[in-house]
């Protein structure tokens, strides 16, 4: 059955890197990569950030020490500029998928709710993939968009506040200190921070889960074996809960509601080492 090759003009069978199609394809890959990698970068940053902030749990001393170290070495200044840029790049590339029309967004919500019950039935083996629980990822995506929007606003405010702080330090001011942070959180801005904390951890958690599923599912990795949805989902859940707990406790300390729970521990360590 020979095929009539007239159907396929040469333009279509000869491909080169200058062709429109190729450039377009390249752009799509680039956008996907940028939105993905900036997201991963921001998530990793947020976890590091969280750990540094949570140093308040061991007392003001450590907190001030770390803050001072970063500002002194100009790391903080560089980071905040970098993060601000990445933050907005991520916003621009990741939001390219958000439907413009309200009607479209409603469609997604409706469908997401409708297919919630899509879990498999009797033949589900315990060892098999994630289907035992309800389908939630569609609705989660809507919440990802919402939390992303919230982060865009709340995060911008936070970046502005902290940015001013750090800038002050560069100009000879006090910079970030436990005292000031506590004051700020205690003064009512805690509301902003609780909201930001939950949005960020949720957004980062779900985002990373999605990222892992998009690029690594089915791949054999050392230690974890074959990457599956179940495994990635479990990891995501664990990290999410872990950081939200740390975050809440940290905020509680900063708000002066409780004393730093690990202060005595730190004192022991410091005491011993001195």
């Amino acid at each position, binding site marked *: 059955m020979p095929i009539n090759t007239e159907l396929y003009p040469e333009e279509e069978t000869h491909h080169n890197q200058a062709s429109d199609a190729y450039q377009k394809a390249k752009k799509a890959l680039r956008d*996907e990569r940028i939105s993905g990698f900036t997201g991963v970068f921001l998530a990793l940053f947020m976890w590091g950030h969280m750990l540094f902030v949570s140093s308040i749990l061991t007392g003001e001393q450590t907190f001030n020490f770390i803050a001072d170290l970063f500002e002194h070495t100009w790391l903080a200044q560089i980071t905040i500029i970098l993060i601000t840029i990445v933050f907005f790049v991520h916003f621009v590339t990741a939001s390219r998928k958000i439907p413009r029309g309200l009607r479209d967004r409603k469609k997604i919500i409706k*469908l*997401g709710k409708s297919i919630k019950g*899509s879990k498999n039935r009797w033949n589900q083996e315990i060892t098999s993939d994630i289907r035992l629980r309800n389908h939630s990822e569609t609705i989660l995506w809507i919440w990802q968009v919402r939390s992303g929007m919230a982060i865009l606003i709340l995060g911008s405010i936070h970046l502005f506040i902290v940015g001013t702080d750090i800038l002050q330090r560069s100009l000879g001011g006090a910079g970030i200190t436990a005292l000031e942070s506590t004051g700020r959180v205690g003064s009512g801005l805690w509301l902003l921070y609780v909201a930001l904390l939950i949005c960020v951890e949720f957004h980062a958690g779900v985002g990373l889960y999605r990222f892992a599923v998009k690029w690594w599912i089915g791949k054999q990795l050392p230690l974890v074996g074959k990457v599956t949805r179940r495994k990635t989902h479990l990891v995501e859940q664990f990290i999410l809960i872990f950081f939200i707990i740390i975050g809440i406790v940290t905020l509680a300390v900063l708000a002066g509601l409780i004393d730093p729970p690990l202060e005595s521990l730190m004192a022991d360590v410091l005491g011993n080492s001195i």
Partner: protein
Amino acid sequence: MGRTLTFKIFRYNPNKDNDSPQVESYQMEETQRLNVFTALNTLRETQASDLMFDFVCRAGICGSCGMMINGRPTLACRTLTSDLPETIELYPLPFFKLLGDLSVDTGIWFREMAEKVESWIHTQEEFDPQATEERMDNDIANKIYEAERCIECGCCLAGCATVQVYPDFLGAAGLNRIGRLMNDPRDQRGDQEWFELVSTESGVFGCIGMMACDDVCPKDLPLLEVFSYIRRKLSKIELSK
């Protein structure tokens, strides 16, 4: 056993003048081993002679009977009423063109998809009736078959929020087909061709990752694995240029 089932069925016939979409209720005694295929046929024979729905093989292989059963897209022929509550809501699959009641036009979409992805083996070699067949590793044959099992029922598309909003998106069924062809050593399309075909916003990067396709696929295809394979492959292609 012994339940009275209430079927709430979406009814609309676009060919009937002045007809408007509505939901009608039908009652029926549940019998043993009843599935939605048998139930719908009984309803048509006894209560609603004009009820439109599609079945062909009624054995889960032809992919005709995808519909929304209590909100989820699945095959009616392999859905048992005993797994459902007493009230069963039946809607046609969203996204596809409605032909009437529970019947939608999946054929046209899949034909267009096949044309878009040029869903045939691209080879310069002509078939030689006298020659022995070209050898192939059985593992590769099995791997191709794994993706080839797609029955084009359209459930993945009906469950996909992305495709509802961006109708150009190839969806899980389209990407799975591309993945199947990429794995086939007989297809002589080169890296660049694959890259241009699938590294696009209507291709694999149109996918937002809502994973509903994976949750609703009645054939349990490893769809997400296929997509991640394609993504990594495209990345490799681009990096090697």
